[in-house]
């Protein structure tokens, strides 16, 4: 008999599974990971049903490990996501990602009058609020909902 669940999202041999992404955020996570450019096998599931979350998104990528910066950025747009490392179809590590205190260089300040958009300086953002996530620029001190910022990798 065909397993209906398996039809939706296939397992991967080696790579990373980002599960429990807030529903509708998978494409934004894919942007952060620059997955449009990848040749790796990749599956993106959007609005899957979830016992815990009602609906969730999921991303599976073969042969790809995430950097700490990438994990931090995913935490900002989907604080409840989990990260699973797969080797030879086996789960070798599973962790809930956590919000970082500070994000360096990967957020572009939406304030055009901020010094980070004028001088050559690495941006620094603090997480000012966790739910909903808001970030605050260390330079112009303006606060922004995470939906309003752009990432740069």
């Amino acid at each position, binding site marked *: 008999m065909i397993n209906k669940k398996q039809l939706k999202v296939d397992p991967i041999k080696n790579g990373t599974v980002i599960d429990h992404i807030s529903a509708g955020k998978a494409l934004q996570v894919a942007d952060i990971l620059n997955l449009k450019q990848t040749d790796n096998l990749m599956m993106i599931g959007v609005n899957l049903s979830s016992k815990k979350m009602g609906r969730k998104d999921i991303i599976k990528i073969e042969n790809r490990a995430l950097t700490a910066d990438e994990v931090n950025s995913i935490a900002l747009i989907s604080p409840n996501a989990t990260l699973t490392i797969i080797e030879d179809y086996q789960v070798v590590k599973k962790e809930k990602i956590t919000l970082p205190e500070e994000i360096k260089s990967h957020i572009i300040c939406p304030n055009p009058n*901020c010094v980070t958009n004028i001088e050559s300086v690495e941006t620094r953002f603090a997480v000012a609020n966790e739910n909903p996530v808001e970030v605050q620029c260390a330079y112009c*001190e303006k606060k922004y909902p995470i939906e309003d910022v752009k990432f740069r990798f």
Partner: protein
Amino acid sequence: MKHLVSMRDVGKEDILHLIDLAERIESGKIRPDLSGKLGALLFFEPSTRTYFSFDTAIKRLGGNTLAMTGSGSTSVKKGETLADTLMTIRQYVDFIVMRHQIEGAARFASEILDIPVINAGDGTNQHPTQAMLDLYSIYKTQGTLENLTIAMIGDLRLGRTVHSLAQALSDFNPTFYFASPRHLQMPRYIKDELQAKGVQFKEVEDIKPIIPQLDIMYVTRIQKERFAVLEDYEKVKDAYIITPDILENVKSNFKLMHPLPRVNEITTDVDRMEYAYYFPQAKNGVVMRQAIIHTLLND
């Protein structure tokens, strides 16, 4: 304290230390010596009042200043980066006072320079020496910063002075009243911060009923230059005008403050009332800036 960039970096202890120092400087108990010290007053965005206050503060303690007002006459106009301008001027002076229209400019300066940087205003962001002189003025007139009832009136959305002051006072158990035209209300993030600290505040439209409870009324100008459309400014410019009649039932310790310049929001016949404190407030700025410079040069 190495720099003074933002009130966010200034804790309750620092505030009380600076007030104590300003008091001792003003009473003549101590006289900081700035002889041989040269400060650069870099006013990329012009501000006569703040500029004069710093210039006076430094010169009256025997120091000297190197002045730049506006960016027109400098290499900034030739396309030099702010970093290069600052690094060059740094070679000549002992500390830098900087006002810039770019938000975060002072933070940036403090990170690339190894001499004290004092933020004299960065765009709509911070103006910490104004907040400190306001705190000193409140302390001088009330004998304390604790448990005061303070009304802030006027442009509470774009006026950075009231933001810094509300944040700075939030550690001293204040009760705030905010009165402003609807489009110029205190920003949500400030109200969120106050709420998180358990500070009591109320937004009111009519100021008359609250006046008898107030220790301090802090009036700000509705700034024409912050409006993109002149019509919008015309609609709100006369929303709150303080006259002697309005101040009939105030408490005996009540003081009326204003960061200046004023336009018409306090009528001139209020000036002779004992409650008018805006000119002494400007004088307090000199002493407080002396206390700040002395602290930064000696820490």
